[in-house]
């Protein structure tokens, strides 16, 4: 069973001539089948954590370890991490002109699965998942994320998760910018993959990064972590999310920040 272990992770963001520490010793363990919500105010380093785990070149890990089933994630390239079973649903998926979504999805699935999926079975798989996420079949023929609305981009991220079947899924503010219907569809997609992966004996571990408690009504977390100033400030169960819903982050930041 999958396990992601983050120990004393320090990460700096690199700009042209400066380097600023954003993550200041993150400790977190996610086991297969668990859903961890990471909540925190803007600028607390939540997204940096997500991008660092995926290996974005803008961020430099200065110390600490990240292990996936004992393997050293930090020594892997971005694509190796994905093939090892890490998936990042991005907050702002980029548009890639001229690359059709269908070609992209098939290329990614071929890379992650180690062989090209059979054409007929693949087309059915994509069609079924797109239907479940209430995506227009025309999306497959459009360029990756190009002209997609915010909600469509997020559905597309969840579609990729369902098709690539990761061991650990990091969802970076997948809920932001979604109206309530889109939020429900996206959440159902996550819950469906959780159930399917569990039934297949490969229960996914989910790291759900969010600014708002809203999505937690749809995706039930096992653990809630409050993230402040590049660290986990407090961990608890869903009661912690309820406190944040009522009081915001004021107890953790010392200042009133709207939740």
């Amino acid at each position, binding site marked *: 069973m999958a396990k992601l272990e983050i120990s004393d992770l320090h990460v700096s963001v690199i700009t042209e001539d400066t380097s600023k520490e954003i993550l200041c010793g993150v400790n977190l363990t996610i086991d297969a089948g668990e859903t961890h919500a990471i909540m925190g105010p803007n600028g607390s380093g939540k997204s940096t954590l997500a991008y660092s785990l995926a290996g974005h070149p803008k961020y430099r890990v200065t110390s600490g370890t990240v292990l996936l089933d004992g393997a050293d994630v930090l020594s892997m390239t971005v*694509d190796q991490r994905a093939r090892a079973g890490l998936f990042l649903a991005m907050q702002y998926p980029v548009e890639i002109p001229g690359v059709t979504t269908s070609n992209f999805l098939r290329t990614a699935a071929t890379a992650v699965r180690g062989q090209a999926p059979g054409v007929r079975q693949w087309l059915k798989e994509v069609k079924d998942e797109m239907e479940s996420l209430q995506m227009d079949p025309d999306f497959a023929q459009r360029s990756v994320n190009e002209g997609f609305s915010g909600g469509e981009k997020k559905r597309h991220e969840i579609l990729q998760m369902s098709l690539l079947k990761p061991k650990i899924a990091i969802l970076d503010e997948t809920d932001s910018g979604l109206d309530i219907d889109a939020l429900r569809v996206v959440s159902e997609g996550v819950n469906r993959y959780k159930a399917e992966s569990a039934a297949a004996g490969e229960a996914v571990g989910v790291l759900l990064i969010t600014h708002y408690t809203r999505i937690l009504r749809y995706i039930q977390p096992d653990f809630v972590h409050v993230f402040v100033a590049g660290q986990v400030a407090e961990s608890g169960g869903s009661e912690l999310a309820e406190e944040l819903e009522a009081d915001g982050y004021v107890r953790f930041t010392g200042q009133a920040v709207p939740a």
Partner: protein
Amino acid sequence: MTTTQILNPTAGPTLGGPNGLAAHSHVGGRTVRTSGVASHLHPVASSDVADHPVPTSKSELWKFAPLRRLRGLHADAEFTVGALTATWDAIDGVDVRVVSGAAGRALKGASDYLPTDRVTARLMEYNPDTLLIDVPADSTITEPVVVTIDGADASIAEAAHVLIRLGDHATATVVLKEQGSATVAHLVEILAGDGANLNMATIADWAADTVQLAHHHISVGRDAKVKHSLLTFGGDVVRTAVDVDYRGPGGDLEMLGLYFADAGQYLEHRIFIDHTPPNCRSEVLYKGALQGDHARTAWVGDVLIRAMAEGTDSYEMNRNLLLTDGARADSVPNLEIETGEIIKAAHASATGRYDDDHLFYLQSRGITPEMAKRLVVRGFFHEVLNKVGISSVIDHISDTVERELAISGM
């Protein structure tokens, strides 16, 4: 039925340079374009070779071009009877033929074109055979007219003239495929009648020793729609200038361009769109990729919106992708606007390497860096290619792009 014809079988070598016919022809009588406001974007138009001095590297229009590699085409290289052939399959309803001599001379400048540079003035004076593609008024031709122009000898300087003429309300698709070895000056005139609808693509995929100086002139009729795609891949030096005029309001022009320069190659595209009548549209999208040492491209896009061209809608975009070190792309969009009563006038230009965010996104889905780059380059080209709208051209260029990518081990 397939026809292959040698171009210029009748022109004798003595016709090179000043020849008797030119001095007395009606072409020689017209000297300067009379469209009113003079533009600093545009040189003098004249059929008199003497009005066009030999360009130097200081000439604005030639400052990017490697003049020493042009084999004198830009100066006084003598045109001779050549080895260029034109091949086409007959299509019902389209008259494709080679017109020589005085009849051919009468077709030079048929799109109301006067030369704006020395090479084209010399070409018109020399009067090479005209390859005429004639589509009668009110006819609709669904099958693409494909003409292959094939060079066989780069050691001689040649000239070629193509006239694509669509009558009023005619609809047609025309593909010019240029290939083989040549040192050639080329004039392609495109005359779209009122309400006509032309989709044309030129594939310049010459052999590695070819030097081509080409000039396309597009005359867009009232309410006519023209799509002009220029796809430049092969050749040592290929420089194509495209001039556009509108003969009446409502003209709609879409220009698409793709080019891929390898080590040592020089590819230049130079566009001039002259908006004089009101309510016309021009949309230009050119994309290029470069790889290898001394791969060079230049793109210059000039749009002039004259005072009377109210309601103009104009957009031009050039993007260049540098795949390796040692390549250089120049990109110069120019916009000159003499009226504020327009819908839109915008231009954009960008030259850079791979977008790191694109590569990160693809790699974060398990795709290797090499495959990610290949996807991005293919995508970069397909954004243009998908708009060309001629399936045989799309297939041909897709294969060509794969061939180019294989050069750098992608």
